[in-house]
């Protein structure tokens, strides 16, 4: 673990030594409700950051805003120095900021391998005219297939390669979605509840995969309710409540923060930080 992540004290919105994503005054209202109102937040590069908070804290909405799947009422944010406000989702993904979804979006009626291939960027065969002439994209397709096969093996999905994604279990779909995201060769991977609905037997391997991403130099930002997982793998934890960032810090310190306990207890009296799985939702 790097000795220094934040510059100065770990207060909400604190500056980081090497941020990859910086958001300012991002605000999203639904009718009269303010879903997200983040004054300032920075995500440290090359580390695993957890975004936690009670249900309805605005975590997924914040994800959607950052990745261009929803438009904020106001706000600015940059990814590696590039302004992202108003940039459509597909361009955000092309820049190397890829996300997964809370409700897994495996493309059920195409095969696992096709799911994987879809993740690859800059494919010549994806242009309408070049698609008609196979020699123009055959070589690229072979390269993609090789890379996909490698990833599938790593994620232990190689045996399922030619099956429809619909035949996978919930946990396998989560794995597929993550593997597919990696096909885009991202710099920042944003996982929305990677553990939700995953069979406990698969939990450990999922954790290993997420650590693996960090080891390969990627930055990971994930939303999670499972506090064990948060403690286990994250280097930094950001806590949201009622749309705002209420606390930040290394996992062990954040869990002791009274603001965090308040936020959770205020929302759910039966919450037990770190000992019980939270009900899924948001």
């Amino acid at each position, binding site marked *: 673990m790097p000795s220094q992540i934040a510059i100065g004290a770990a207060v909400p919105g604190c500056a980081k030594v090497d941020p990859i994503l910086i958001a300012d005054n991002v605000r999203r209202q639904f009718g009269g409700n303010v879903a997200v109102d983040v004054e300032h937040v920075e995500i440290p590069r090359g580390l695993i950051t957890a975004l936690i908070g009670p249900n309805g804290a605005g975590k997924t909405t914040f994800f959607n805003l950052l990745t261009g799947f929803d438009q904020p009422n106001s706000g600015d944010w940059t990814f590696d120095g590039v302004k992202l406000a108003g940039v459509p989702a597909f361009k955000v993904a092309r820049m190397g900021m*890829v*996300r997964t979804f809370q409700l897994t979006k495996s493309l059920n009626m*195409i095969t696992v391998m096709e799911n994987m291939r879809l*993740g690859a960027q800059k494919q010549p065969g994806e242009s*309408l005219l070049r*698609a*008609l002439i196979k020699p123009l*994209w055959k070589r690229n397709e072979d390269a993609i297939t090789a890379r996909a096969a490698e990833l599938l093996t790593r994620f232990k999905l190689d045996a399922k390669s030619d099956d429809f994604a619909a035949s996978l279990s919930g946990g396998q779909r989560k794995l597929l979605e993550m593997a597919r995201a990696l096909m885009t060769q991202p710099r920042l991977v944003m996982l929305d509840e990677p553990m939700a609905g995953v069979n406990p037997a698969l939990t450990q391997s999922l954790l290993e995969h997420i650590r693996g991403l960090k080891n390969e130099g990627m930055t990971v930002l994930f939303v999670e309710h499972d506090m064990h997982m948060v403690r286990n793998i994250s280097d930094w934890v950001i806590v949201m409540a009622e749309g705002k960032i209420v606390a930040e810090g290394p996992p062990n310190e954040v869990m002791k923060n009274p603001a965090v306990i308040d936020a959770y207890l205020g929302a759910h009296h039966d919450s037990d930080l770190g000992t019980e799985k939270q009900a899924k939702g948001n």
Partner: protein
Amino acid sequence: MDLILGNAISWLFQPITAAYALAAIGIALHFGFTGLLNFGQAVFMAVGAYGFSISVKFFGLGFWPAVGVAVIASIAMAFLLGIPTLRLRSDYLAIVTIAAAEVFRFIVSTTSAQPVTGGPQGLNQYSEGFYAMNPIPVGHYKFWVWDFKQDDLFAIAVSWLVVTFFAVLLAILIRSPWGRVIKGIREDEDAVRSLGKNVYSYKMQSLVVGGLMGTFAGILFVLPTSVQPGNYGTTLTFYIWTILLLGGASTVIGSIVGAMIFWSLLSLTGDLLSTGVDNGTITFLTQNQVGAIRFMLVGVALMLLVIFRPQGIFGNKKELYFNA
């Protein structure tokens, strides 16, 4: 009886059948592979029919330039329909396409547009340029109960050639990386978007290509007959959908076989009922009601297909194309 049978069998290869098959192939791309609810294929056919025939009759263009005009008009129509709707939920595309088809029909059939479109009477006699290319020697060609003139044979041959061309084109496309993106959009467009694909652009490409198939279908549809504005109502679109679902929406061959089965059965039931009424076997129907019965049969077929065999005759049960 031979006549009725001959008539029904002849619908297997009529140019009209080919035209419906091609229009259905276009919807297969739109709906079966991209998930776009195009309920206005009639408008693309009408654009083909009118774009071509007006170019010939009103602007005096030759066959090929007239086809070119129809193609350009078709692409323009796809953009016109796609720009406002492809970013919206799928039901918006459905209502806008169906409305656009009706608007187009109203405009071409208004009496004020008569000098150009022929108004409610439509247009005819624009096919000389087409038949001038006919290499088949003049004469009557008789097979069984059929009697074809050289032009009939030419129209049949060209129609099916065009259908084959587009069927092969679609088959190649959907097996390419382009087709992969398209199918991904059908499954979940947000997922595809999150992988860096410009979903809007792909939907537009699909709309344009499938619309072009509709436009060529429209030209094939009117080459051997005449342009009648009344033909381009919602019923035309619903017939094409029935054909598509009959064969299987996520298949290419399904549209072709679907069109053949659809027209043969429609002809057979119509002729049998008509004959029955004529010779007094069927007493509970009048000749006018026979027409209504045929439409009812199409409706029943559509309902049963969608409920009990949504994948169609040739579809793969696993590759169900309906999302909730």
